[in-house]
């Protein structure tokens, strides 16, 4: 059996399914439901076994279509930075508010992807988010809490 990344993913999925199955057996059901033909843990238990079955088959059977990924050609740095920016966005949006966080998120993303046309970057972040916010808040009536805009008196 050749060990390739697909097999490793299948092994991880096998372990995940085993954990899922274990957790499914731990689901607390009502006493009167314990021996019922179907209760809250029945379906998850079947799913756990199905996960073990398919990932087990994938592990055992030969892989006719082995996928080879050239890791050296992949852009891990930029992808990682984008993910990091998104995490920072998630961490700050409730405290700072939608407008400033989203505008900075866009501006930083353009910058880290290699864009240097500052005026265009600005136009496609701050005014763009303001227009989108107006569409959501003003036209579609979707409330957006924004402590920053409230603090400077733009939003009530």
């Amino acid at each position, binding site marked *: 059996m050749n060990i390739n*990344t*697909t097999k490793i*993913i*299948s092994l991880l*999925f096998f372990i995940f399914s085993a954990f*899922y199955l274990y*957790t*499914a057996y731990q*689901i*607390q*059901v*009502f006493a009167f*439901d314990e021996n*019922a*033909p*179907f*209760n*809250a843990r*029945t*379906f*998850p238990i079947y*799913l756990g076994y199905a*996960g073990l079955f*398919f990932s087990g*088959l*994938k592990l055992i*059977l*030969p892989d*006719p*279509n082995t*996928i080879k*990924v050239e890791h050296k*050609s*992949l*852009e*891990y740095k*930029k*992808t990682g930075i984008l*993910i990091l920016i*998104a*995490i920072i*966005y*998630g*961490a700050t*949006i*409730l405290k700072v508010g939608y407008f400033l966080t*989203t505008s900075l*998120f*866009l501006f930083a*993303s*353009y910058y880290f*992807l290699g*864009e240097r046309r500052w005026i*265009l970057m600005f136009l*496609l972040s701050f005014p763009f988010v303001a227009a989108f916010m107006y569409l*959501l808040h003003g036209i*579609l*009536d*979707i409330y957006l*809490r924004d402590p920053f805009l409230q603090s400077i008196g733009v939003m009530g």
Partner: protein
Amino acid sequence: MIEGILIGLTTALTFQNILMVMVGCFFGTIIGMLPGLGPMTAIALMIPITYGFDPATGLILMAGVYYGAVFGGSTSSILLNAPGVPGTVATSFDGYPMAQQGKAGKALAIAAWSSFAGGTLSAIYLLFMAPSLSKVSLSFRSPDYFALMILGLTAIAAFSSKGQFLKAMMMVVLGLMLASVGQDSLSDITRFTFNNMNLTDGISFVLVVMATFAMSEALTIILKRNDPTSAAKQVSLTELGSIKINKEERTKMYKTIPRSSVIGFLIGVLPGAGATIASFLAYGMERNVVSDQEKEKFGKGSVNGLSAPETANNAACSGSFVPMLTLGIPGSGTTAVMLGALLGFGVQPGPRLYMTNPEIFWSIIMSMYIGMVILLILNLPLIPYIARILAVPKNYLIPLILFFSVTGIYVMSFNNFDIYLMIGIAVVATFLRLYDFPMPPLILAFVLGGLMEENLRRSLLLSNGSWDFLWDRALTACILVTTVLIVLWHLYKTFSKKN
């Protein structure tokens, strides 16, 4: 039925809904043109906006996006030989050679008219077939529904990726596992929440779609250093030539369109099949039925070779609405996304939708037709201008996709836990995509998870825990036999390849 059509027309022809079809078609065309970004991404990005409207308007907008994305995919197939969606790969076989001969405008016109005719004919088939099927499907019982969902999930796993059946089945199981997080629908017992309050209501459908499609596709483009807009820089998008179709070409199309529309529609109705298989089958069939002289032109710019897949892929789009509207079971990843959105609106598609919400049922069918007309009169003359959007640098495109994804999630929950969860799922999905694990089966399974458990629960309770319900009814048994045949066929293919 006439009354229903009138209800549908009244709903679909309001100013707001016509505007929504136009916006949907335009937006869908743009996204569909970009290689790698398909209708599912386009619809996913639209979902948060649709929640600001009533269900009929929201669904009309999504249907417009769907058709627009398929049309946009054809445009990039013809102009750039870079299909935006898999359903338009066959279009490039003859569309691109035609464009290289300086007849890009004509190729686009043939594609547009074929799409229009295919969509129109299939909307008529749908008009007659959906109400009848709705009545038939009222006789379906829980075991039949359960078996049908198993068939749908197996079929999508079988057809969604070449030779990757087991990977697709693993994605199906993962989708069902994700759907099982949160409160059990009957007993309210929490499952797999690990005492996290944010998971009590389960994982949001929009979150999973955004993470596995929009966000993960954007990350994949960056990770693989792909540039969906690079091909556009190498061709002239302004000198497309005449869009007039001569009499001889029209005669060829008259013969091709009806037969391809029937194939497309029927394939679209089958669970899991969809536009890709329909377009390839129609192309293959057309090649077999034309004269030897015409056969020689296939692959070199044949009118029949271009018209057939274009008719079929649009007809398949309408066909894929049949199982969703009549049974409440989506046949493809895209209709699964739409089903999820409908459930978000509090509308349960199924045989009773026809009776309980006729305005939604009929307005979707009517708006499909309006969408076709709009695509024809708006997009065809505007293609040279719309195609310029392909030249937007990815440095702007990717952050904007990420922006719509995170904003979409934030405005739905105002909760940063959902943003973290989305990032986590997107990272895993991006990694899985690298190794060809298909995402549409995961989405379909996620959408069907709750319904599947519900129908299994009813079946098992009625049969007192016995699995006899799987073969007690002839219909259930037939559906399951079909499922088993699909599985055996794929296992046979895997082993025969090895040997």
